[in-house]
């Protein structure tokens, strides 16, 4: 036995039509039918076991982490639904073959249809909650595709979206509900869940999960107040309406309630919610159906009403009610599907569905008419038809409950009213369409459809009759096993007979009949009465609601995400402030135990200078040149501070970086406005000042606390191993090129990338070169003063020499590749400034891009060298040699690494500044080209 194939066959079937489409409509339709047929056959093979009351199971591991497994269970209920889904499905395939016009893509249509079929099959034979939900969502998706099959028309799109949104929302609720059930039971296995009904009903969260699950069911089965999407799903091709929106998908919600009946039902809450929702839906649907002029509209609302009836039955918490529900599921599926197909035929052959135009079709299509009339009578609950039987049972059950206490008599009364209306609209369907005079200007003259288009209808109508006349023989056993599965215990079905003698249910049916006829006879007054309310169009309301949601979100986004960098930074700083400041509240005393250094005059003056020029920069930031000068002062003092606190390397680096940065900023300032107006309001300035001030205080405090607390670090290790392990006495440098060489590698990479990025920026830059500054003073017309040229030219070799010296000593005394590189770069730049690009170009023929790459390459290669000695990346090597005349000297792989650094730095800085310089010349055009 292999239940997997029951799902798998249709699943494979989804691709069949896409392959066979090109071989013509008949072949396509036929080939599509094969696999579902096999699946149906497979199911029927199990019929024996099922009728013995067994349930078949199969489980395959999938994703244990979420409790999802391929787990199947075939019991009476699943069996019944499988018959409906696959059986009616096959009829629909046949029907659709004739319904679809030549310009519709049959392959796609069938693919969607079979996908949906698979999903339904999956739902009804799932033995795992997650898997059930999976297929549940799949039905929403495939129904979305089917409703929007004619995607060019806006109603189809809107209807599909509405259906998807409503059922999708329900799906999410259902998921939550199922997960809660899983949490309570500790397993997502349906069997386990069904055996723990009491546990679940007793659990504190039962009401919540009940509501969540029911929301899922109600949205799917179009129960009030979620019913509004169903009529708009009628924009789908009629085969879809017949299949999804009457026979199967909308029954999925019913199935869900039936499936969980043993677990969730039996409480007052269940009764309250389910039966009342059912009752309201029943009445509402029946009432509105009467006023629909569109055939499918009428059928849609009648479907809603009948689903309400079934729901009501399930809500009554009585065994026989449940049986009645199951019975009505069967009956409704048969007569409603056939009615939809008939409507489709009429639409197909007359070109209209408007009952104000469709009249007297009996004359034109007697065969179809007869079928439709029988089906409609069954819908009305006329004796000798299956509709009658389940309606009788329904009446009987409404009488046999006392849930509303002394008001219980209301339920049978309202039930009868509902039934009366369903008689009325059935009557209208029959009378208006097939009799009642002559058709009114129809697009086509009506005629009988192709022979085989009627076959599905005939089969279903026959079923209505057969079941109606010999219920016990035809559906007795099926009904028995199915309802036993719902109730999880055996139920005797004694009332499956046409004649129970004269009793109240019969009376109620009689009243319903009479009432219905009366209503229909006086419909004019009703129609007039109804016409004074303008009927709300769910589609427009829905779209408007969605639109308003969207608009609100857009307003919110526009307000928050207003594209002002200043606000974003402000938020960033606020957040930072909160994060840094709050912990300080726990800081007992900020002065730690570490002895402090006494203050001396030099430092004071330095600090004063620093503070003042920093503040000056901030104050005169709009007079940019001035600000820039102050800024550079700050930079100088900072490097002095480094020198003061025994960090010569830092001092040197800071200094050289300072120079290059300032040159850069000056160049930039040449292209940017030299001064700007006051922009920020004082309010804003003060707010910003407060925030940044607070941040300053916080950082300062932390800094002080840090400085005054003693610390034991890993640095002693570096001091200890620098000479012995790293071969250098300048510990900082050894850390850079050895202990933490990897950082340095990254660092020069950053520099290189920056250079590339800047080159990229400049290449596409279309900037006009100002001839005079803001104040209108012309820039100097002698860009390269004679004196300067001479000096800088003579300086160049000296500078290069210095840089070599700095480079070589780096490993043991302050210096190193980086600083050396910067010095070299500055020296070359000086040449640029002095002589201009044209003068340099022929003389300096280095490709800086290669230089950067080469630098990084050398550094990396040095690191890789250690692999030869089977050491990890960047392991260094060094040794001391003794050469005559020169004396002892050291060779270290670190030096090679440093060379890489040197090259990269020179390359990067040159690439940046040289190209920037080019912007001031005719060279610009050239750069454009090579981009």
């Amino acid at each position, binding site marked *: 036995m292999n239940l997997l194939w029951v799902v798998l066959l249709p699943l494979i079937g989804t691709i069949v039509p896409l392959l066979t489409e090109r071989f013509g409509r008949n072949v396509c339709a036929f080939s599509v039918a094969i696999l579902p047929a096999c699946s149906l056959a497979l199911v029927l093979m199990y019929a024996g076991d099922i009728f013995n009351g067994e349930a078949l199971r199969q489980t395959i591991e999938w994703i244990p982490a979420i409790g999802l497994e391929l787990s199947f269970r075939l019991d009476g209920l699943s069996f019944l639904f499988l018959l409906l889904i696959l059986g009616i499905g096959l009829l629909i395939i046949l029907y659709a073959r004739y319904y679809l016009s030549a310009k519709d893509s049959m392959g796609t249509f069938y693919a969607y249809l079979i996908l949906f079929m698979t999903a339904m099959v999956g739902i009804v034979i799932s033995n795992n909650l997650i898997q059930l939900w999976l297929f549940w969502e799949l039905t929403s998706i495939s129904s979305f595709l089917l409703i929007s099959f004619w995607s060019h028309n806006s109603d189809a799109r809107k209807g599909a979206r509405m259906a998807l949104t409503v059922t999708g929302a329900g799906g999410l609720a259902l998921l939550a509900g199922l997960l809660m059930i899983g949490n309570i039971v500790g397993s997502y296995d349906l069997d386990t869940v069904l055996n723990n009904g009491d546990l679940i009903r007793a659990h504190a969260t039962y009401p919540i999960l009940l509501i969540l699950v029911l929301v899922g069911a109600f949205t799917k089965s179009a129960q009030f107040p979620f019913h509004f999407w169903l009529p708009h799903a009628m924009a789908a091709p009629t085969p879809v309406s017949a299949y999804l929106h009457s026979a199967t998908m909308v029954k999925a919600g019913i199935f869900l309630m039936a499936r969980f009946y043993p677990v969730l039902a039996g409480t007052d809450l269940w009764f309250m919610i389910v039966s009342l929702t059912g009752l309201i839906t029943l009445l509402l649907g029946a009432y509105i159906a009467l006023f629909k002029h569109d055939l499918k509209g009428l059928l849609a609302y009648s479907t809603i009403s009948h689903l309400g009836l079934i729901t009501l039955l399930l809500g009554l918490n009585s065994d026989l009610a449940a049986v009645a529900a199951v019975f009505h599921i069967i009956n409704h599926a048969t007569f409603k599907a056939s009615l939809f197909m008939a409507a489709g035929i009429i639409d197909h052959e007359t070109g209209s569905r408007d009952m104000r135009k469709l009249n007297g079709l009996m004359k034109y299509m007697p065969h179809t008419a007869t079928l439709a009339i029988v089906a409609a009578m069954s819908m009305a609950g006329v004796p000798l038809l299956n509709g009658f039987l389940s309606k009788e049972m329904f009446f009987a059950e409404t009488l046999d409950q006392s849930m509303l206490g002394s008001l219980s008599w209301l339920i049978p009364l309202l039930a009868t009213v509902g039934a009366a209306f369903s008689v009325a609209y059935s009557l209208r369907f029959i009378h208006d369409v097939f009799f009642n005079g002559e058709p009114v200007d129809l697009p086509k003259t009506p005629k009988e459809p192709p022979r085989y288009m009627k076959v599905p209808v005939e089969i279903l109508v026959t079923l209505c009759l057969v079941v109606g006349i010999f219920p016990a023989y035809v559906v007795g056993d099926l009904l028995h096993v199915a309802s036993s599965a719902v109730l999880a215990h055996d139920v005797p079905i004694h009332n499956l007979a046409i004649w129970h003698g004269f009793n109240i249910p019969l009376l109620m049916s009689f009243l319903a009949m009479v009432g219905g006829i009366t209503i229909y006879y006086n419909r004019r007054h009703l129609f007039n009465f109804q016409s004074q309310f303008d009927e709300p169009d769910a589609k427009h309301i829905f779209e408007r609601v969605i639109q308003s949601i969207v608009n609100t979100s857009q307003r919110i986004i526009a307000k928050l995400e*207003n594209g002002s960098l*200043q606000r974003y930074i402000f938020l960033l*700083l606020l957040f930072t402030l909160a994060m840094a400041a709050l912990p300080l509240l726990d800081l007992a005393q900020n002065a730690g135990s570490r002895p*402090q*250094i006494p203050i*001396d005059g030099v430092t004071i003056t330095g600090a004063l200078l620093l*503070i003042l020029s920093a503040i000056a920069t901030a104050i005169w*930031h709009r007079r940019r040149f001035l*600000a820039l000068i102050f*800024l550079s002062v700050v930079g100088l003092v*900072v490097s002095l501070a*480094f020198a003061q*606190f*025994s*960090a*010569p390397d*830092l001092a040197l*680096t800071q200094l050289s*970086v300072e120079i290059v*940065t300032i040159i850069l*900023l000056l160049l*930039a300032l040449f*292209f*940017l406005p030299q001064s*700007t107006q006051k*922009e920020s*309001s004082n*309010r*804003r300035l003060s*707010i*910003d000042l407060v925030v*940044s001030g607070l941040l*300053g*205080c916080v*950082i*300062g405090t932390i*800094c*002080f606390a*840090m*400085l005054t607390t003693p610390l034991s670090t890993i640095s002693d290790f*570096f001091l200890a191993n620098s*000479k012995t392990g790293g071969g250098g*006495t*300048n*510990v*900082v440098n050894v*850390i*850079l090129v050895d202990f*933490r060489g990897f950082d*340095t590698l990254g660092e*020069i990479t950053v*520099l290189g990338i*920056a250079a590339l990025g800047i080159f990229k920026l400049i290449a596409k*830059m*279309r*900037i006009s070169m100002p001839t005079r500054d803001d104040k209108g003073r012309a820039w100097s017309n002698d860009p390269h003063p004679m004196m300067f040229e001479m000096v800088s030219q003579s300086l160049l070799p000296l500078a290069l020499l210095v840089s070599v010296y700095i480079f070589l000593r780096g490993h*043991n005394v*302050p210096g190193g590749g*980086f600083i050396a590189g910067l010095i070299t770069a500055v020296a070359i730049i000086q040449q640029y400034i002095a002589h201009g690009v044209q003068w340099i170009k022929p003389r300096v023929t280095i490709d800086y891009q290669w230089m950067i790459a080469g630098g990084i390459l050398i550094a990396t290669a040095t690191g890789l060298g250690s692999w030869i000695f089977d050491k990890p990346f960047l392991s260094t090597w060094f040794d001391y040699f003794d050469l005559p005349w020169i004396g002892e000297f050291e060779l270290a792989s670190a030096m090679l690494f440093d060379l890489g650094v040197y090259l990269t730095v020179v390359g*990067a800085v040159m690439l940046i500044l040289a190209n920037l310089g080019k912007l001031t010349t005719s060279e610009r055009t050239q750069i454009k080209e090579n981009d």
Partner: protein
Amino acid sequence: MEAIYALCVGVLTTCGFFLVLRGRTFTVVMGLTLLSYAVNLFLFASGRLKLDGAAVLGQSAEYSDPLPQALVLTAIVIGFAMTAFVVILAMRSRADQGNDHVDGKIPVQPKKSSASDKRHS
């Protein structure tokens, strides 16, 4: 001494952040530069202050913590790369958008409080 040092860091940070909050690219760049000074000093401070500790072995009995120095060095270099990039970006931005406002467009009626409302609304 520590107090003064911390004070300097604080002031630099304040000025830095204040300038970063301004609306023009060049000002923001200057702010970032100030900020990076503050950051470097701060990072340096994480190794505590030594007046005459040696950085080179064998020069003196006590040494200043070399690790933060190395870190600051890296930070300086990276900072330089970033500053360079953002400066050129500022120029590019002006070239593309015709002004040097960080949002590419000058807010209307700068004198009015609208600018601040824009942010605090």
